[in-house]
């Protein structure tokens, strides 16, 4: 068997060929082969359990009975070799319901799920939310992400950037729907932890109670480990708590979700710094067998310009945000200048404004398009009255005595340089200017604070000062020590840390059970296939994404109340039902091709299916030309587009969207179901030149034969 395509698919092709060609002439061998084929097909469809593999093993053995003919022995031997050699591939198809090479067409995960660093099964939970099953949706999310509420408010939402619906109008607001479901489930007291395994006697120490640490602690606790989380700060949440301001992420949200993790028996030790308050030896003596480092990247880079060391009011954004989060609610000054334009810079600027600063300016050396901050965040900041000055390179902090008076800057232009994709800001001579300031906040990036980590001698640190790991298991070079989050990636996102923490938890579990670590990261798991929400083509096309209601502007400029107020329930259900269900339809475009090129009907206008050249999509136009012949449905591998019969109508339904509905006709003789009038008209148009139009009764296939028999051969 050739090695090019997925082994599971390959085995199916091999076996079908042996059966169809009549090569297996022995009836018993043929029966065995057909049974094995059925089992493998179920594996390829994601409908199998691990029992299928044992079943196949037994069946393969039964080829080798006494006197079994040569073809049986040959096929049996080939199958045995394949199953032994590629057992883990079959196993991963069963366990993950995924085919990594996408050869088993039915098993492709949706683009949003593939884009999510934590691999959440997004289409499934969106459908559950659309159906009003919030608690079930949370249960699905928490299989991959223990903090759905937090992520629902502040995730950088890589999923939405991959959303296929964006090719039609706008991406689904995946992010916030999660927050709604979490809030509702929490309020209904339906936000529950899954059952955890019995304590297995092993203990793991997690360093850092940020998203990475919480995520690892959650999955480890579920697997039955004793988990202690060491946290230097007096609060949990890490950067989510002391980095993200509470007008974006209320404290209570973190507290509630951390409480869920605590409920699993995870022990949190606050105000405890690793290397100062606890030591590696001490923890090892206590019986901790594995360590997970999720210490984040909390140290801010300094500007490195003149005057920086001279004035007390030169702050770094991290310290500033942390102090505010921990209770220092004093305005840093009247005229605040924030240097940098990442999300931290925006947070520092908006926080300064809320604390009472009169003017807040963000100075960035590149232009708006290059700014790393979320464009939406920048817009919110601008709405609140924060000024942006782009192409501005800070040169010197000016002042008298201890007081800052301004920030001297150079105007820059973007220049293309060799060996760099990014345009480089270069000062323009003679265009220096001064920005009025009494506080300068540097927000140009953070790095990992390695103090206290000396005990982990075997851990390798990269040139950027981050921990080097195997990204599949998050294992460091030091046995039993794992790491994830910003400490590994450098300043990144909450969801990446959560994904890393989850991978680390599985890595630790393998380490403590002496199972070799995987070489490739796990592929996202499709949990179930939730039946799609049914609606008309018009509704599917005309549903519009809701507009996020915002806190009024005066409060946004003066208080720390949550800015995004959240959608109402109706909007949430509607928005969730806009999902195209890419977990069912993998957009191979076969239906469109068959309808257009083979049938010549061209009723399916589904331009979104083409990834490279997106053309117009309109579900409503299908009904104009479609004859409900069902050729599209007959050729859909995933049963994403189906023909069904309901209330006297034959309908064409694509992932819940009713594209067409035509009246069913019945056989005049036996009342059997017949094609629609539109379909018969299509045939008449094609056969009109050879058939005479006569007064024909509508007859089904069987009756036509019966009547044909009677007419031609009357009983003698």
């Amino acid at each position: 068997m050739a090695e090019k395509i997925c082994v599971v698919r390959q085995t199916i092709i091999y076996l079908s060929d042996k059966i169809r060609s009549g090569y297996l002439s022995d009836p018993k061998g043929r029966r065995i082969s057909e049974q094995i084929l059925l089992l493998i097909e179920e594996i390829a469809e994601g409908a199998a359990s691990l029992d299928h593999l044992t079943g196949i093993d037994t069946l393969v053995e039964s080829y080798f009975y006494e006197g079994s003919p040569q073809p049986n022995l040959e096929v049996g031997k080939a199958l045995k070799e394949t199953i032994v050699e590629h057992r883990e591939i079959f196993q991963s198809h069963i366990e993950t319901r995924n085919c990594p090479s996408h050869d088993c067409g039915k098993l492709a995960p949706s683009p949003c799920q593939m884009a999510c660093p934590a691999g959440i099964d997004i289409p499934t939970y969106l459908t559950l939310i659309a159906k009003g099953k919030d608690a079930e949706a949370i249960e699905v999310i928490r299989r991959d992400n223990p903090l759905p509420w937090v992520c629902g408010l502040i995730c950088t939402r890589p999923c939405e950037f991959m959303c296929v619906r964006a090719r039609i109008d706008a991406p689904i607001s995946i992010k916030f729907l999660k927050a709604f479901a979490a809030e509702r489930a929490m309020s209904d007291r339906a936000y529950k932890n899954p059952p955890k395994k019995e304590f297995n006697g092993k203990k793991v120490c997690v360093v850092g109670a940020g998203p990475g640490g919480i995520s690892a602690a959650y999955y480890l606790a579920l697997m039955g480990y004793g988990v202690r989380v060491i946290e230097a700060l007096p609060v949990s949440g890490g950067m989510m708590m002391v980095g993200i301001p509470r007008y974006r992420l209320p404290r209570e949200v973190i507290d509630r979700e951390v409480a869920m993790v605590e409920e699993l028996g995870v022990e949190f030790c606050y105000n405890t710094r690793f290397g100062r308050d606890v030591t590696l030896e001490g923890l090892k003596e206590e019986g901790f067998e594995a360590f997970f480092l999720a210490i984040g990247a909390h140290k801010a880079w300094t500007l490195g310009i003149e005057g920086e060391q001279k004035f007390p009011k030169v702050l770094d954004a991290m310290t500033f945000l942390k102090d505010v989060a921990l209770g220092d609610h004093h305005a840093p000054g009247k005229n605040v200048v924030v240097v940098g334009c990442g999300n931290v810079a925006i947070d520092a600027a908006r926080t300064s404004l809320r604390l009472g600063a009169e003017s807040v300016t963000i100075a960035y050396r590149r232009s708006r398009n290059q700014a790393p901050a979320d464009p939406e965040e920048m817009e919110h900041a601008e709405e609140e009255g924060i000024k942006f000055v782009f192409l501005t390179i800070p040169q010197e902090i000016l002042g008298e005595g201890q007081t800052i008076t301004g920030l001297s800057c150079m105007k820059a232009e973007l220049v293309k340089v060799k060996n760099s994709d990014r345009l480089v800001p270069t000062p323009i001579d003679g265009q220096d200017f001064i920005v009025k300031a009494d506080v300068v906040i540097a927000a140009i990036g953070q790095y990992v604070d390695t103090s206290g980590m000396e005990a982990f001698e075997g851990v390798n640190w990269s040139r950027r000062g981050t921990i080097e790991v195997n990204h599949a298991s998050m294992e460091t070079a030091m046995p039993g020590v794992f790491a994830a989050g910003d400490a590994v990636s450098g300043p990144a996102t909450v969801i990446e840390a959560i994904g890393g923490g989850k991978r680390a938890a599985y890595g630790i579990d393998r380490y403590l059970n002496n199972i070799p670590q995987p070489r490739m990261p796990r592929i996202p798991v499709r949990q179930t296939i939730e039946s799609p929400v049914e609606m008309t083509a018009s509704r599917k096309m005309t549903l519009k994404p809701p507009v996020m209601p915002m806190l009024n502007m005066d409060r946004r400029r003066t208080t720390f109340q949550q800015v995004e107020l959240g959608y109402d329930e109706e909007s949430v259900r509607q928005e969730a039902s806009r999902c195209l269900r890419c977990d069912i339809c993998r957009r191979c475009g076969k239906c469109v091709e068959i309808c257009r090129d083979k049938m010549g009907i061209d009723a399916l206008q589904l331009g979104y299916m083409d990834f490279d050249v997106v053309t117009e999509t309109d579900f409503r136009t299908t009904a104009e030309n479609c004859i409900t012949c069902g050729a599209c449905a007959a050729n859909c591998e995933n049963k994403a587009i189906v023909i069904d019969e309901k209330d006297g109508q034959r309908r064409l339904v694509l992932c819940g969207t009713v594209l067409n509905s035509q009246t069913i006709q019945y056989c005049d003789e036996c009342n059997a179901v017949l094609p629609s009038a539109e379909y018969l008209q299509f045939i008449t148009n094609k056969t009109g030149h050879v058939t005479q139009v006569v007064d024909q009764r509508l007859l089904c296939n069987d009756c036509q034969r019966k009547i044909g028999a009677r007419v031609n051969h009357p009983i003698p």
Partner: protein
Amino acid sequence: MSKHYLSQDTKKCIGCHTCEIQCKLNKNLPVGPKLCQVIQVGPKLVGEIPKISFIFMSCFHCENPWCVSACPTGAMQKRAKDGIVFIDKDLCVGCKTCVSACPWGAPQWNPNIGKVEKCDYCMDRIDQGLEPACVSTCTTNCLSFGTVEDATLIRRERHAASVSSFDENS
């Protein structure tokens, strides 16, 4: 009309359905599609005696086949050299227009593969000089396969026999 002709002597047929079974085995068909089918007509009282007929129905391989005209993909075809109407399953997309177009119910639906199946007089067999599968196992020899000319002669002879004065039933 193809140059071949499959004729049935209804007087000889006992309705054993062996032809159907042989056809299915030969084409490896699942439950459902019957490329040929023996249809029972009757029983009906003719005078005092209940009578029954078994009619062999497959495909007539029409001169102007409606199924071929109806097929949008060109899967349903008429073989140029002898007029056999057959389906190229690689081209079939399962729209079933042929099924609906045929007044005789000849094209049959194979639900397992989502495509249409149809009697092709076992083209592969007749090209090798064999008879169609159904004919080859007919228990009473009521099915015969040959040219249209043969068939018309058979029919004339049969009719002549039935109207002859020796036949007591006429």
